[in-house]
C-alpha cells in the first residue's frame, strides 16, 4: 500500500538516534546530563514503538508505547527526586 516502507525506515532511524543518545549518557560530565540523555531515549523509544505499530498495522505496539511512556515518566520523577536528595 505504501510504495516504500516509510514507517519501518523511520523506526530504524529512531533506533539509531536512541543509540546516539546513549553516547551522551556515557560521556556526560554530570549526573543531570545522563538523566536528560535517558529521558530523550525514552521519548525516542515511544516514537519508535508508534511507528513500528503503524508499519506492521498492529495495535499492541501502541499499547506498549502508552505503558512505556507512563513508566518512563515515573522513573524520571524518581531519578529527579534522588538527584535532589543527594545534593
Amino acid at each position, binding site marked *: 500500500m505504501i510504495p516504500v516502507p516509510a514507517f519501518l525506515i523511520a523506526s530504524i532511524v529512531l533506533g539509531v538516534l536512541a543509540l*546516539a543518545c546513549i553516547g551522551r549518557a556515557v560521556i556526560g560530565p554530570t549526573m543531570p546530563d545522563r538523566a536528560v540523555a535517558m*529521558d530523550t531515549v525514552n521519548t*525516542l523509544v515511544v*516514537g519508535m514503538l508508534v511507528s513500528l505499530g503503524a508499519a506492521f*498495522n498492529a495495535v499492541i505496539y501502541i499499547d506498549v508505547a502508552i505503558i512505556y511512556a507512563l513508566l518512563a515518566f515515573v522513573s524520571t520523577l524518581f531519578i529527579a527526586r534522588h*538527584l535532589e536528595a543527594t545534593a
Partner: protein
Amino acid sequence: MMIVVLSLLGIGMLFETLGVVGLYRFPDVYTRMHGATKCTSFGSIFICLGAIAYGILLAVEGQSVLAVLSLHVLVALLFLLVTNPVGAHAIARAAHRSGVKPKLAVVDRLEEAGK
C-alpha cells in the same frame, strides 16, 4: 493523501534528528535539555500525527475497522504531551538544586530567589 502521511513523518524525523544533534552540541545541561526535550517532543507529536493520518487512511480504504490504530496513537500522544514537560521540569529543578550551575548565563534568578 499518502503525501500527507509522508510529509508529517518527514517533519517529525527532521526534528528528532535536530534534538539529538543539540544534545551533543550544546555547552551545559540546561541548554542540552532545552534542545533535546523541546525538539523530541515536537518530533514525536508529528510522528504520532503521521500515524493517526495513516490509520484514518487505512480505515477509509477498508483495511481496518473504526480506525483503532488512530485512537490508540491519540491516547499515546496525550500521555506523551502530559508527561514529557513535567519530567524535564523535574530534572531541571533537581539539577539546579544539586549544584550544577548554568555555564554561560549572565543572570540566574532562581539562585537569587533561593537566598
